[in-house]
């Protein structure tokens, strides 16, 4: 297949060998599971259980609210210990409603919905509902509810489904292992998704630094003529969906549009596997494969962990720390978020837990920008990080927005490449937050203006009504007086 070049990008030290040869192991059931109600983009789920309740494995414990949301299920059987606020696995560490489940060790399944017979000929709507019920969200990191994406076929003219097996982040090997060990499940899930989307073709893109995964997937796809497995160049951030689509099709997704606008829907390989399980076996999303790696981890590994297990449990399975970690990261080193602590739970979008040594992070005090242009050359989005950061430093968000800070995908390439070690991405995160906050405030002001106008209108109406009433009363009084007068006269 002919591939197309993408702009910029970097070649960081991948270090995938730390965990790429470790087969996926299941995490023994931990003592407690912490299931946050918000593990996805959209509205948080609403808890359906209360402290003390007994639940079975796979039982719905929080239902989705609104169009873009996802439900949560009990990863194992046990007793609800509490529904309370604990710090989220998020850099803010803000408390967040979480269901705490105490496993009873029996791992007893609830009654699962019936598998969908012959899903490749089933009604797409049925599959979408099943995916929604199963609480599947994108496992590539963004955790967007997958059922919503599977609906795109009804609104867009789609050409093919692109399965994202690029896994361009350093260290991470979870997708690699899933593809190697469960190639058939992934392919089956992809075919179901393609059918749901109403597309005929499936392209599976895998970076060329994963030859075994490529081989396994090619083998598994051999019998399906509609599936193409493609090796793409090793170039961070090849896994970004817009760039991957560009590499495969040469088409550039316009700003503020979706890849679906140019005919492609992108899903992660692990998402495909989850769909396979939900459709073929009725199983909701209860666990995911997490790569635990980094120089500070004694034995890096790929762990299939139940949602809600604490990071500490995963690290313990890897033999603990071999040294003092300088950073604890949720996800890959480029786009991952710092973890507030080892108590944070595994969530659906968590692809990796990295404990990195100071040497690996190579964090140095920021120096002045020497305008070397490295950040400009490598930005895959064609932005000018050096200028944006300069304006953001002066809190000039307008110009930063004009320069495209909102188009930045936070891939981290610029921060990685900066010889002065300027925290460029941090500046952009700050600016995006400020711009969003301003936008929220602007919307709020607008709403308040409407409310105030409504209030004024109401007050006016009331005043008019009061006036009318008074006039009416006065008139009646006058009438009355006149009438009595007349009566008097008559009398």
């Amino acid at each position, binding site marked *: 297949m002919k591939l197309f070049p993408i702009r910029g990008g970097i070649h960081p030290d991948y270090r995938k060998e730390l965990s790429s040869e470790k087969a996926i192991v299941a995490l023994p059931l931990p003592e407690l599971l912490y299931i946050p109600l*918000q593990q996805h983009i959209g509205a948080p789920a609403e808890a359906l259980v209360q402290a003390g309740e007994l639940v079975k494995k796979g039982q719905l414990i929080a239902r989705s609210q609104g169009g873009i949301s996802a439900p949560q299920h009990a990863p194992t059987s046990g007793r609800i210990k509490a529904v309370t606020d604990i710090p*989220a696995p*998020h*850099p*803010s560490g*803000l408390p*967040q409603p979480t269901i705490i489940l105490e496993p009873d060790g029996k791992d007893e399944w609830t009654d699962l919905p019936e598998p969908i017979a012959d899903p490749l000929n089933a009604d797409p709507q049925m599959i979408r509902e099943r995916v929604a019920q199963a609480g599947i969200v994108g496992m590539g990191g963004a955790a967007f509810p997958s059922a919503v994406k599977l609906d795109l076929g009804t609104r867009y003219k789609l050409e093919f489904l692109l399965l994202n097996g690029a896994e361009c982040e350093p260290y991470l090997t979870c997708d690699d292992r899933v593809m190697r060990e469960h190639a058939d499940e992934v392919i089956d899930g992809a075919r179901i998704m393609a059918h749901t989307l109403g597309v005929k073709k499936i392209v599976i893109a895998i970076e060329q630094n994963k030859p075994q995964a490529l081989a396994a997937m090619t083998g598994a796809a051999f019998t399906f003529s509609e599936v193409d497995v493609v090796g793409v160049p090793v170039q961070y951030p090849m896994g970004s969906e817009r760039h991957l689509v560009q590499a495969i099709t040469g088409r550039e997704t316009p700003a503020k549009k979706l890849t679906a606008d140019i005919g492609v829907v992108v899903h992660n390989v692990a998402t495909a596997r989850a769909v396979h399980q939900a459709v073929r076996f009725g199983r909701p999303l209860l666990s995911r494969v997490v790569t635990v790696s980094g120089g500070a981890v004694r034995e890096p590994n790929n762990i299939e962990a139940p949602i809600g297990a604490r990071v500490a449990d995963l690290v313990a399975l890897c033999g603990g720390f071999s040294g003092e970690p300088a950073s604890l990261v949720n996800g890959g080193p480029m786009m991952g978020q710092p973890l507030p602590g080892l108590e944070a739970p595994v969530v659906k979008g968590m692809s990796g837990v990295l404990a990195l040594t100071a040497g690996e992070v190579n964090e140095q*005090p*920021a*120096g*002045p*920008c020497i305008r070397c242009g490295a950040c400009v050359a490598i930005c895959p989005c064609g932005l000018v990080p050096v200028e944006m950061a300069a304006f953001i*430093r002066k*809190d000039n968000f*307008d110009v930063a927005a004009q320069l495209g800070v909102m188009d930045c995908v936070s891939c981290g390439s610029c921060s990685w490449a900066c010889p*002065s070690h*300027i*925290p460029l991405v*941090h*500046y952009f*995160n*700050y600016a*995006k*937050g*400020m711009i*969003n*906050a*301003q936008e*929220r*405030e*602007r919307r*709020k*002001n607008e*709403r*308040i*203006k409407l*409310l*105030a*106008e*409504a*209030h*004024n209108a*109401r007050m006016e109406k009331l005043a008019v009504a009061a006036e009318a009433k008074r006039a009416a009363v006065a008139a009646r009084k006058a009438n009355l007086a006149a009438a009595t007068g007349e009566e008097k006269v008559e009398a």
Partner: protein
Amino acid sequence: MLIAVGSLTVMGIALGGILGAASRFLAVEENPLEEELKAMLPGSQCGQCGYVGCAQAAAALARGEAPVTLCPPGGRAVAEALARKLGVTADLSEHEEKVPQYAVVREEFCVGCTLCSKECSVDAIVGANKLMHSVIAEACHGCGKCVKVCPTEAIEMRPVPETLSTWHWAKPQAEHVLH
């Protein structure tokens, strides 16, 4: 000498005439700045700015008598928009420190007098006579007028809590800003 004085005078008269005429033909109506400014203010007529309402505030702004930071409910966003419109650089540091607030009615003290709901210019307070009132947090813009009228001091202003969806990264510690 006559030529000198004459030519200069003729020139003066001519130019004066042209300019006078030009000022007439090319005159522009007073700029609609005031209207634009009014449109940018929240319009809640809360009076926190010290003017009777947003219209007067806008007029003062247009005359250059009021600072762009005059409107507390408008917050930083409005101040910045005003500064941009008026082409001035505003010191917004004061605005940054002010945390947005909203009103909360403490049940135990509310006697249901309805004074507050009458005061609120955005109808953010609901409740019937003699019954507990409460504030719709999303509608309240934190003007604090209700606090002042409440006879039992049942209303207090609280900072709007930060949530996962409103949290964002703070400005990086600019170690490389050497000054």
